[in-house]
């Protein structure tokens, strides 16, 4: 009686072991990654933010550019939908209508007042400004809005009445896009330079190493600043966007290139490379088909880890005014306004995008860390 469950358990154990030994590298990494709770939470947060960025036009009730401004509610505080007030309860959440007036009573200044008797109910799937979903499908439906001519600003508005909620969602996407482009460019550069240095070795390696080391020694933000300062003021926001990504990529490659080179130097003396050489394979073929796949997982992890640095650099550049500028919504461009004393003291809701920035970077760091631990076959034994 008592042997049966044990035998059963042994069978399951055997199966689990078999599955473990026959699993591909990807499956192993995924299994280890799934076991890391912090990394999984971070991964979900990351996916959520990416989706928010991807569907930003649908989720945001108003155009994030000056076209979507609310001239009746400039520098307006965030509006929270309510379910009840002194006038009674409502199943449908509502906000109050705002009115703006300028008269002798207000000393000829614009004063925004809230009309507590006039409720604006929150509606879902309303028709609003036109956009292209995912850049192709023309649409004008938005997740939410309020009825009538009123507008709802969950995160408040900025000095020109632009909705900060809409801007934040679009900014997440822009920052992600800049980061992705930058990582891709630096990845290709690192692959080519590190690959050539590591595979050929000798004097080519020495020269490339010298250049790589020199670039690594120069502090990158001053270098970014120097490159970004070349940007003429008349460039369009798209050109600026691409230029900034290219700069980020041009400066980000040395660390990864060095790692690829070190790896190649150790791998190229292995027997399988010799075997391929004896079969008459060309250098390019050996690098592409044999050497690179041997450390794909490390490259992916490295890219993931360098991502927050890219986003951070973009933010820092835009923050000091050398990166993306106001009509474009990037997290850094949104933070530009935060440093004004007026904002610090009176309009603290400008800081809301900062929370998203911190969350985005933290999510990337935790996912990158989790991936690194998962890709390291010795991580279990180390701890």
């Amino acid at each position: 009686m008592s042997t049966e469950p044990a035998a059963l358990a042994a069978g399951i154990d055997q199966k689990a072991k078999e599955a473990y030994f026959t699993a591909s590298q990807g499956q192993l990494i995924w299994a280890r990654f799934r076991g890391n709770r912090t990394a999984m939470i971070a991964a979900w947060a990351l996916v959520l933010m990416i989706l928010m960025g991807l569907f930003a036009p649908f989720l945001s009730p108003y155009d994030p550019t000056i076209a979507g401004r609310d001239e009746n509610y400039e520098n307006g505080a965030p509006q929270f939908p309510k379910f009840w007030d002194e006038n009674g309860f409502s199943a449908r959440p509502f906000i109050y209508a705002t009115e703006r007036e300028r008269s002798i009573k207000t000393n000829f200044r614009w004063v925004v007042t809230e009309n507590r008797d006039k409720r604006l109910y929150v509606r879902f799937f309303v028709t609003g400004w036109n956009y292209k979903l995912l850049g192709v499908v023309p649409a004008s439906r938005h997740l939410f809005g309020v009825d009538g001519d009123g507008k709802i600003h969950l995160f408040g508005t900025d000095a020109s009445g632009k909705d900060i909620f809409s801007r934040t969602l679009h900014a997440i996407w822009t920052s992600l896009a800049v980061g992705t482009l930058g990582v891709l460019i630096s990845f290709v550069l690192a692959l080519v330079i590190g690959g050539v240095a590591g595979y050929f070795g000798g004097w080519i390696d020495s020269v490339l190493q010298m250049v790589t080391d020199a670039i690594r020694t120069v502090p990158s933000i001053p270098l970014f600043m120097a490159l970004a300062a070349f940007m003429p003021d008349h460039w369009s926001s798209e050109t600026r966007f691409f230029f900034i990504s290219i700069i980020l990529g041009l400066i980000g490659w040395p660390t990864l290139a060095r790692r690829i080179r070190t790896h190649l130097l150790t791998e190229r003396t292995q027997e399988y490379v010799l075997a391929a050489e004896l079969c008459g394979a060309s250098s390019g073929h050996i690098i592409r088909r044999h050497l690179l796949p041997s450390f794909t997982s490390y490259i992916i992890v490295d890219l993931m880890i360098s991502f927050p640095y890219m986003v951070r650099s973009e933010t820092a550049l835009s923050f000091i005014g050398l990166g993306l500028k106001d009509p474009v919504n990037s997290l850094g461009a949104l933070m530009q306004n935060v440093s004004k004393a007026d904002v610090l003291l009176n309009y603290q809701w400008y800081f809301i995008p900062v929370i998203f920035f911190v969350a985005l970077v933290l999510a990337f760091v935790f996912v990158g860390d989790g991936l690194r631990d998962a890709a390291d076959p010795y991580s279990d034994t180390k701890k």
Partner: protein
Amino acid sequence: MAQFAQFALTRALMALITLLTVSLIVFTLMELVPGTCAERYLAFKNTQGSQITIADIAAEERRLGLDRPFIERWGKWVYNVFVHGEFGESCILRVDINQLLSDKFWISLGICMAALVFSYAIAVPIGIVSASSQNPVVNNSLRFVSYLGLALPNFLLALMIMLFSTVVFGDSLTGLFSKEFRDAAWSWAKFGDFLSRAWLPVFILGWSATAFALQTVRALMLDEIGKLYVTAASARGVSGARLLWRYPAKHSLGPVINSLGFDLNRIFNELPIVALILTLTESGALLFESLARSNDQQLAGAIIFLLTASIVVLNFTTDILLALIDPRVRRGMMG
């Protein structure tokens, strides 16, 4: 000894080559800036009312030696910098860069080095203790704090401290000197005033450096602490702080010394932005000024070169130091 001298000489030569490569990169960057110094100077004259012609620009270019080929100009620049320590004249301000920078650069370097010392003064003890502690709460919160060092950039921290101090103390804590000392010559009183204000930039610059250093120290300690010689030492009856300091810490701090240069690099990265927010009057702010506002390529190049040079010097010093205390490094370098 001869071996050590040879090692030091090789390292010095390598540092010199790195510096030369850096100078080439910086000089090329300066060349890439749209417009030349001559045009900039004459554009200024133009605003003052005098008519200028193409011939004037050409004459000015000849006077500044801008008509010579690129390599020759680079050689001259490098020669002046390395032999005379001269960076030439600023394009816009029309003053000698050395004069403009001398105080400001040393202040920047002092602040950054202080931030570096600050970060390791915190990171080394805490890192060692956290690596030897098995408490998951301690470890996880430390990990979180180090990640926050990356996620909460220094400029945001600076902003938040400014907001807080404006509301609470009514003083935004910006600037490096009080009003009465701003233009005074250096004296003990001025130095004291400087110290009373410099702690904030030091703290802010040290913030993310501390987070990084903490992670490095902890990871290195974790690698060492499980090794057999530590077990053997504890079997011999060594325990507590004595065990940690004399055995694993000694070994794990070697690589830390080696990476000091990169930590300084990271601190320099933050410098211009923090300087901008705290309205510091030192070379970080000057760099920003020369790049973003006035396109002063001579000045910007000089500052970037000086910053990088101090990193190279630090790298060289730590290498020599490490070789002095650890003969394995020396032998490893000799091949």
